């Protein structure tokens, strides 16, 4: 079974530029998560999708971050405009169901550096 795929693996941009990350979850996983992991900290949930609907986006800075999951499979996370404090690893995870037995499988992440 293929794991969670993410691209790009690394991205360097100037502040105020925009950037987008892509995630392809494990086949058959209905729930998809985007996390932000700042260096030296644990992952922090940004947004959770169940199929193509948003379940939790309470910690997503909506003035600059947006995410979509068209057709309930792939997802993209966008930052526009980026700030220095957005430098982090952006992790995508997926699970079969939202709760009970919902082991989250993480992708390798995209390391974003904002200069």
């Amino acid at each position, binding site marked *: 079974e293929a794991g*969670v795929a993410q691209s790009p693996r690394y991205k360097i941009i100037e502040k105020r530029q925009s950037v987008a990350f892509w995630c392809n979850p494990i086949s058959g996983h209905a729930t998809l998560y985007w996390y932000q992991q700042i260096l*030296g*900290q*644990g*992952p*922090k*949930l940004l947004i*959770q999708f169940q199929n193509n609907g948003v379940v*939790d986006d309470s910690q997503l800075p909506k003035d600059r971050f947006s995410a979509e999951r068209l057709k309930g499979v792939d997802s993209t996370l966008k930052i526009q405009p980026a700030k220095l404090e957005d430098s982090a690893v952006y*992790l995508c*995870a997926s699970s079969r169901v939202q*709760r009970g037995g919902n*082991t*989250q*499988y*993480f*992708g*390798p*992440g995209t390391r974003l550096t904002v200069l």
Partner: protein
Amino acid sequence: QQQVKQSPQSLIVQKGGISIINCAYENTAFDYFPWYQQFPGKGPALLIAIRPDVSEKKEGRFTISFNKSAKQFSLHIMDSQPGDSATYFCAARGSRLTFGEGTQLTVNP
């Protein structure tokens, strides 16, 4: 309320020793407590998990001890090996999964 506090930040043990990482939480609504292992350049991977109605769970060299009244849980790695060198995160599930700050474990040969 949603915080999970983890200690120590870093830990160095000798090969064959026992590694112990501790976590504490406040929210009594948390119902699932997983531990994740993360190697450099990789995403976190589930190592072992426990529910609050169980006081201990063991899988191979890894054991979770859970103290519901103290709202604390810990990971014990027995016979630690250099290949266990990684960052370990405790987590707790309420409305979402909340992670601790992480412990960087180094096992010296």
